[in-house]
């Protein structure tokens, strides 16, 4: 399978703070990959670097085999990389429909754009009902759907999502994630999902990376990550009993 994104040894620092310490990551065609990590693990920084909004201090990122150094987010969108930013970031005073049209800025085929708007309404029926409303008055869940649909309007080969579950009800998260998997199957778009909600993310991902304090400490197939003791304890909230039949305050993580 073709490699779409290849990050090698990426380091990023904010002043004296190392946010990423040598992160390497692969995304292949038609894959769904999850990057798990707690607050401050460097997830958002990683995505910003992958879409060229931020330059890495060390290391390199290739998109479709080409180094993205010196590129910018708007140019990468033209090459097929769409980014759903953290916190949705819809255009508040544009209607739902205009938000979608804005998402198709890099395309000029009017008829196909109109067809894609309809396709998005098909995926997200709630958006169809509110197509003439300002995006600002939508609920959080609807705004997240709009942000995803808007990103898909550029017909990307890679869809990157920064914490789509943030602040949403569990049932809604499940619905959105199931839909992401369906869109991935139907259109073949690769998905790179950065999440704290490990349970939901692993349920739709093929592979996963665990990012901790700027380092990738684990990468494996989703089923094996979900079965890993450390992941289970740290991210899935499943507590095993210790050797003496009681849980220690904090087990030393080994990451192996």
């Amino acid at each position, binding site marked *: 399978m073709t490699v779409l994104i290849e990050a090698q040894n990426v380091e990023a620092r904010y002043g004296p703070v190392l946010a990423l310490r040598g992160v390497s990551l692969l995304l292949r065609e038609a894959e769904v990959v999850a990057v798990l990590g707690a607050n401050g693990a460097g997830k958002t920084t990683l995505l910003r670097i992958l*879409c060229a*909004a931020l330059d890495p201090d060390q290391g390199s990122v290739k998109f479709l085999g080409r180094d993205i150094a010196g590129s*910018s*987010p*708007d140019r990468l*969108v*033209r090459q097929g990389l*769409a*980014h*759903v*930013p953290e916190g949705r*970031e*819809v*255009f*508040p*005073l*544009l209607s739902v429909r*205009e*938000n979608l*049209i*804005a*998402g198709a*800025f*890099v395309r*000029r085929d009017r008829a196909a754009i109109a067809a894609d708007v309809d396709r998005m309404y098909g995926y997200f029926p709630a958006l169809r009902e509110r197509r003439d409303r300002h995006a*600002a008055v939508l609920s959080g869940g609807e705004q997240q759907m709009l942000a995803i649909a*808007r*990103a898909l*309007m*550029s017909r990307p080969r890679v869809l990157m999502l920064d914490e789509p579950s943030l602040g949403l009800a569990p049932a809604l998260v499940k619905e959105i994630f199931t839909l992401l998997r369906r869109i991935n199957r139907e259109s073949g778009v690769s998905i790179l999902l950065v999440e704290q909600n490990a349970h939901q993310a692993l349920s739709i991902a093929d592979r996963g990376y665990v990012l901790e304090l700027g380092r990738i400490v684990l990468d494996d197939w989703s089923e094996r990550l979900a079965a890993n003791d450390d992941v289970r304890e740290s991210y899935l909230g499943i507590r095993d009993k210790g050797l003496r039949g009681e849980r220690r305050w904090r087990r030393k993580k080994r990451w192996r």
Partner: protein
Amino acid sequence: MRAFVEFSQQVLSGAALGCIYALIALGFVLIYKATEVVNFAQGELMMLGAFLGYTFISLFGLPFWLGLPLAVVCMAGIGGLLDRIVVRPIVGQPVFAIVMVTLGMGFVARSGASLVPAWGVDTHVFSTPFTGKVTSIGPLVASHDQLAIMATTAALVAVLFLFFRYTRIGIAMQAASQNQLAAYYVGIPVKAICSLIWGLSAAVAAVAGILLAPIVFVHANMGFIGLKAFPAAVLGGFGSIPGAIAGGLVIGVVESLAGFYLPEGFKDVAAYVVLLLVLAIRPQGLFGEGLRKKV
């Protein structure tokens, strides 16, 4: 009856001048919404537009309907270049730096214009197809210059409305002004769009300048009218396009009425008195958006 006619006559000429304020205020608002830069040189852009119109029409002897679009296109280019060369390098600097730069651009434009040999510090006149003609509407008398100003403003506002509503670039401009980060992420080249917006508002300013020329004459200091357009923009709720138009009209009419009915001197402060009153009652301006822009 005579009092009513006098009143209506003042409202009419006030509305015509108000349209000019509105067009300049529109320029303020367009640039502010997209880039959060308050362009204090907007009046000077209008002055340059008027001078270019004077150059093409009076000096080169081009027909009005050729000289006007030519001046507008030139000003659009100048506006775009100003953004690219002067404003873009300082975006992200403290607000006062940007304010000083736009004020400085105004000074440079004023003295630059008076250094051009054929422009100088004299007042110039150029005639438009509307000059010197009047139409009577019942007991009211309207000069064609005034009617042209109002008709052009109405047409320009309608075109801009359709442009922002239905075209790809128009929607992209709105998107970029509402959320720059997200605009980048959907592939909108925000910097190029900002230059386009500067070009657009310089073009609008040029139209205003050429329309205004027959009424106040072309002069290097005619850009000071921007100081009246600024309260118009604030009155409308800085950041709202319909607000800029309404604000301009209100200021124009109030000023005209104050000049007619009140003692001398009130004409020039009337705009600010109205502004203070409105802001005291409705701080967000007439059309202010309740929604704060996210940074």
